[in-house]
């Protein structure tokens, strides 16, 4: 079963305001993510994972009358933003929840876990095999 784990970072205020972290706290956070990715790979559970650029340039796009893009945004007032995601291949939803919980403990200021919210969604598959 494949699941997408989406890391939602709170915006603006709060613990995820990484600009105010000490260099050591920041290094610890990077090292945690690196280790986490390596563990996923070693366990054969890693399918994909990407970090996204900050939302400063994010746009919402719709097609206009002639099909040309009409953009909206960015949205500085948004409360949280998608910072990155993983796609993992696991045997059960419980395993996906466990992996998400682990990611949620990524350290922040003073090494305390951030407890970031991680949204977990199953990735839909192709057609079922014939009976």
């Amino acid at each position, binding site marked *: 079963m494949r699941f997408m784990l989406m890391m939602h970072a709170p915006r603006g205020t709060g613990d995820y305001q990484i600009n105010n972290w*000490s*260099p050591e706290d920041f290094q610890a956070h990077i090292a945690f993510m690196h280790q986490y*990715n390596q563990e996923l790979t070693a366990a054969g559970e890693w399918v994909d994972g*990407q970090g996204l650029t900050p939302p*400063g340039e994010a746009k919402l796009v719709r097609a206009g009358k002639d099909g040309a893009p009409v953009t909206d945004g960015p949205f500085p007032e948004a409360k949280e933003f998608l910072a990155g995601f993983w796609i993992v291949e696991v045997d059960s939803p419980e395993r996906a929840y466990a992996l998400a919980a682990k990611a949620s403990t990524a350290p922040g200021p003073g090494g305390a876990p951030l407890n970031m919210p991680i949204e977990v969604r199953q990735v839909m598959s192709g057609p079922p095999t014939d009976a």
Partner: protein
Amino acid sequence: MTKASPDSTTVGHLLRELAPQVLGAVARRHDDFAAAEDAVQEALIAAATQWPARGIPDNPRGWLYHVALRRITDHLRSEMARRRREDAVASELWAEWAFVPPPDGEVGVDRDDTLVLLFMCCHPALTPPSAIALTLRAVGGLTTAEIASAFLVPEATMAQRISRAKQSIKASGVPFDMPAESERAERLAAVLHVLYLIFNEGYASSSGPNLQRTDLSNEAIRLARAIHALLPDDGEVAGLLALMLLTDARRAARTGASGELIPLDEQDRMLWDRGLIQEGTALVSDALGRGSVGPYQLQAAIAAVHDEAAQAGDTDWPQILALYGLLARMSDNPMVALNRAIAAAMVHGPEVGLQLLQALDADARLRGNHRLDAVRAHLLERAGDPERAIAHYRAAAERTASIPERDYLLTKAARLLAGQRT
């Protein structure tokens, strides 16, 4: 007729060396580059599975050539069977393909075929991603799956990219031949540019969590060596090869344990590869000694000056500044101007560098580019203005699409902030 079970690495190296030679011979005979390329790819795959088990044929090139021609014949035959049902024209076409040379017959290899292939795959009609993919397959002998995995895209996507590239070549009507003398220099520049892009893609991967995808760098170096062997007197070919070697020499020192980026002045220089530095330095010295200086030679010379310094403090910055001056005169590239500002700051102080950056603020080509902010942050830090340095480090971190670089820039900002608080 065969040697005892070779390992698959040996077979792989041999196949990739033979790939452009066989494709050159098949494309000359068959006149349809796209079909020839497909057939050679199938022959390479057949060899990769059979040779490790059965041994390498006495005449491996002849074997590949024969199998590739057979594949073309097979495809033609099934195509004809289909057409025969539609109309009954085709029988004389078949006769043309009934004869294929015996498996061990010698294949005429034209040394220039590899060059012709490179000119074709790096044709200006192709977009850079298409040219890169086609070069790696047709000249590098990599499989579609290998190329797809190097670029982190699904195999079907890469197959489509390659097939579209071949269609563009077909549509452009380029013959399988050397470009005319009058356009040779321009076409060679396009080839070198594609190899440089392949190298950079491997060296500083443009996206994703891993900073380096070394296989692509190695492949670019291998192809550059091949062109250098064919055109030993071309200074820019030598310059590009030297630049790759001198840059690659620092690979082991360039990242830390968590994949973080380590800048040149903080690298452990004991980790640099002396052999590559010697080879690259000798190449570029020899090329520069012959006159006709070009941008790759100058960039290689700059890399050589960095590489010969035992410590960052020993770097001969006046020489680097002079080389960037030459480079700036040769090409109107804002990145060169940016690097020149760094060199000027190292020689004459950060204020001089910051002044040079002001001229770049108006350059539309750098708008939204994180490098301008990153360089300004460095110079402001050196000038003793941590507050503005932090702001520019953060602005650069917001804009870069490289995770290791973003982490590096945020760490710089965090260190300065911590220094201010104490």
